[in-house]
């Protein structure tokens, strides 16, 4: 199960360039998650790796083999399609075993594998049904099963859980995480759901308009996003962004804006000197707020109680912010509370380039 490398990958559809220059390395056995807004080229990238879409330029290397011009079947991979792509005329068992039957595996082995995978996917009762006789979620699980019965070197998943209900999705996510630990294959996984991305990925690749905005471990992306887009994309609830200015008063650099002033740690001072007295975008995660006296007084406009946590919608100056707090007793809307933010938990971005400072 060798590493995968994408080098200067490019894809044009006629005059439209969907992906201009994509470079990405995936280590052996790594679970890579591609995330990004709709239409950013995730499926296109995946389909190029699969060999279903021709490559306009650049190379795809699996191990040392340049596969960019090979047929899909020569690339040793299994794939779960965004639109399931089941064989309408075959029942579930036949759908799942198709690749194995083509590979002339013996009957008893095929049957055993299909049974095992069907059991983990809760599909045992449906093995004799045709795809048209299944619900959307069941079809999606069959699509998943069809890939999982195979012993391919690389697994590609295009939003494989998007049509499942929350409970089933959680269950399948756990199943996938277990499987990826157990079999250690290359996995490339496309999703919209950042919880999936964070929990499954060894590495997350955030894309926008066909470009990679940042690639790294979930922790790296969460703790030190390279730009405002990644900061806003990773983490839930979404990071708050406030307009602010960097001011120095009494030797302390602080981010000051309408209704707040947050002193920044001494360690960042040198690095931020160049931006003194300039505008910045300040990013604060909802979870970085903690209740405490002497902080910013904030009116609670809306309180969403979720159990152990509450998400509060409030305002600083005239800018709306979300706050996530641990709650024992629900906080009521209409109250005003004071919150503090630690200077080492805020993110600063250049207003023009949106790069992290």
């Amino acid at each position: 199960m060798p590493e995968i490398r994408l080098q200067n990958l490019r894809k044009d559809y006629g005059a439209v360039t969907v992906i201009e220059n994509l470079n990405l390395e995936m280590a052996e056995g790594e679970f890579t998650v591609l995330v990004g807004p709709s239409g950013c080229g995730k499926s296109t990238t995946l389909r190029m790796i699969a060999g279903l879409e021709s490559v306009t330029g650049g190379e795809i290397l699996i191990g040392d083999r340049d596969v960019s011009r090979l047929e899909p079947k020569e690339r040793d991979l299994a794939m779960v399609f965004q639109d399931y792509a089941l064989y309408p005329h075959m029942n579930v068992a036949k759908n799942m075993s198709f690749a194995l039957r083509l590979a002339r595996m013996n009957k008893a082995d095929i049957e055993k594998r299909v049974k095992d995978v069907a059991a983990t996917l809760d599909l045992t009762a449906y093995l004799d049904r045709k795809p048209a006789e299944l619900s959307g979620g069941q079809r999606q699980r069959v699509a998943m099963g069809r890939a999982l019965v195979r012993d391919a070197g690389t697994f590609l998943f295009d939003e494989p859980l998007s049509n499942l209900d929350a409970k089933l999705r959680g269950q399948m996510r756990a199943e996938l995480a277990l499987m990826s630990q157990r079999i250690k294959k290359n996995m490339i996984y496309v999703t919209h759901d950042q919880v999936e991305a964070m929990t499954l990925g060894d590495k997350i690749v955030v894309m926008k308009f066909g470009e990679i905005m940042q690639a790294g471990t979930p922790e790296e992306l969460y703790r030190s996003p390279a730009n405002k887009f990644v900061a806003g994309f990773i983490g839930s609830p979404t990071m708050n962004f406030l307009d602010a200015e960097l001011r120095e008063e009494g030797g302390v650099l602080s981010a000051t804006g309408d209704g707040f002033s947050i002193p920044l740690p001494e360690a960042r001072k040198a690095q931020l000197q160049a931006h003194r007295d300039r505008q910045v975008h300040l990013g604060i995660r909802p979870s970085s707020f903690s209740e405490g006296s002497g902080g910013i007084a904030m009116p609670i406009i809306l309180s969403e109680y979720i159990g152990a946590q509450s998400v509060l919608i409030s305002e600083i100056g005239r800018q709306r912010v979300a706050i996530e707090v641990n709650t024992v007793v629900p906080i009521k809307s209409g109250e005003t509370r004071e919150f503090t933010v630690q200077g080492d938990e805020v993110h600063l971005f250049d207003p023009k380039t949106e790069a992290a400072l």
Partner: protein
Amino acid sequence: MSVARAARLTPYMFLAPAALVLAVALFYPICYMIYASFLDWNPSQRIGEAEFVGLRNYIKLFGDPNFRESLWVTLKFAGIVVTLEMFIGVGLALLLDRNIRGMSVLRTLFILPMMIAPIVVGLMWRYMYHPTVGIFNKTLTNLGFDTIPWLSDGNWAFASVIIADVWQWTPFIFILSLAALQSLPSSAIEASKIDGATGWQQIIYIKLPLMLPVLIVTLLLRLIDSFKVLEVILVMTNGGPGLSTEILSLRINRTASEFRELGEAAAMSNLLLIVLLILTFAMFIYNKAQDARAARLRAVEEEA
């Protein structure tokens, strides 16, 4: 009349004129023909003067070796022609189902034969099959081979009419198969590529099974049609030499105009009609079964 009853009858009132036209235009001739098949009727007589002979025409037909030969020729012709056309038509469709430049021009060229009037097709082929100046024999002579008695030998004549029919009607199967192919779910085919299917395996395991409903209807349509060919063979061989290419429709034509046995011709037409009805009925049953299946699937889907 109550309002409800009037409302219930409304659709029938609208249907009535069409039903009337249909009855006159369709049922009248059929009944006429059925009645005629029980008569010993000569074209110089008016129908009222013809003698009623009951089933004699039918009995005579079954005892007539020429009729049996003609029936056999028809079945053989239809079977061979439709089989060849299906294989070639579907094969071509599978071959030409790709988006390369010039393909649309090629596709249009392929369906040209279908648009030529059958009489013209017959004449064209008769000239091409001409023993001395026809293109085939001329080419053979130029290449130093013996000429072939295209239309003058029984076996060759049968093969020749088959070639002409295949030439004319393969395009029909070709365009229907191509349409079916292009409406197949592309994602299922992609999935099969990932699953490791070769081009052949994609065709055998995915494309053909998914095209099957269209192929069956196409086959039945062609089969029905092939029982009714007349003009091309009439022009090319007029049924000969001997009875080698005398298909039923030709024999009916001859019985009526040459042997002047209208009753017998009618009886033969009725037999042909029965064969066609059976085929049509098969198609109808098949469509019904498909609809029922689709409805069942929909019901399951809604419930899920």
